[in-house]
């Protein structure tokens, strides 16, 4: 089982969108995948579970009220989600940053090959929940929006990951940087991408995700982009990005 944290301090870069669509592409390859919503805004939960129901949340898991297995809600064949909680920030996680890691390890189904990947949607900023996500993850995928401040703040993000690697999780690595919401009709976007590739070279994923109406439409309908009733170019992009991510993990 591999755990991937989708990450950036900056909000609105597309972490949730990437988490949902990458997970959907992985499960379409026949690999069972679990999504964990660690953001108290619960956007991933709202994207994956249409109805507002009383399902156990990640908060219930962390409090020990329910096991991880029982909190996994099946949203599609081979795709599960542990819903987020708006009250997650009320839980004091400072003393137990490795709590999620140990719960994932103890979960029988997850560790005995039933689940191939766990994908964690991390909250913006750096708080106890995000620290816990990086402590539990094997890999981090950094999401950036090349035209905005999210690119300039990348150093801060990587610095924080470095500290967590030193203190909590020496096996953590950054799988790569995914460029999202790219509008290549704009010269600023092209310049920014060129700059990113020149500086980060092989650390940037080859595939970029375009700025496309399909994404907010899919979010509004609470489905992955692949399930829209038209085939957006972002479907192939998410599929190719997912293959690139899997390929990089195979290479490590």
């Amino acid at each position, binding site marked *: 089982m591999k755990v991937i944290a989708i990450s950036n301090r900056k909000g609105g870069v597309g972490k949730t969108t990437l988490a949902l669509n990458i997970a959907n592409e992985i499960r379409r390859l026949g690999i069972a995948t679990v999504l964990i919503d660690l953001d108290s805004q619960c956007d991933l939960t709202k994207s994956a579970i249409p109805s507002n129901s009383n399902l156990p949340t990640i908060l219930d898991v962390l409090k020990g009220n329910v096991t991880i297995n029982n909190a996994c809600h099946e949203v599609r064949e081979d795709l599960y989600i542990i819903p987020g909680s708006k009250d997650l920030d009320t839980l004091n996680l400072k003393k137990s940053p490795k709590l999620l890691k140990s719960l994932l390890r103890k979960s029988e189904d997850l560790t005995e090959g039933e689940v191939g990947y766990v994908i964690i949607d991390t909250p913006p900023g750096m708080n106890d929940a995000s620290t816990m996500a990086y402590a539990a993850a094997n890999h981090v995928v950094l999401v950036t929006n090349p035209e905005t401040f999210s690119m300039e703040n990348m150093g801060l993000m990587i610095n924080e990951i470095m500290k967590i690697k030193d203190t909590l999780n020496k096996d953590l690595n*950054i799988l790569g940087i995914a460029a999202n919401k790219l509008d290549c009709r704009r010269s600023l976007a092209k310049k920014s991408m060129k700059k990113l590739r020149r500086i980060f070279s092989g650390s940037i994923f080859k595939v970029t995700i375009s700025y496309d109406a399909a994404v907010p439409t899919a979010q509004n309908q609470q489905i992955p982009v692949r399930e829209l009733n038209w085939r957006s170019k972002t479907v192939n992009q998410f599929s190719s990005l997912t293959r690139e991510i899997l390929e990089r993990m195979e*290479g490590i």
Partner: protein
Amino acid sequence: MESLWQAKKQLEQVNGQFHKTAQEVETRRYKRAGGGRFEDRHKRVTTYLENELYQEIESLRERGLILNLTAVVNTALREYITNNHGGKK
């Protein structure tokens, strides 16, 4: 701009020597083999796989988890030789 170069150095620090993109894996393999054409660096052989193993490999290939069977076989043989006969890595 300066901050991005700094971020790149920090990323390399995080990943240390273990970070291998697909391109780096291929480049290192190519350099280790001393460069040259694929046909000059490889010997074509015919071998037999057990049916169950073959099905497993095909399933992994269909799922996109194995992209290059030659690379997998070469890696497996290299590890076997290293672990059992003390060959070079």
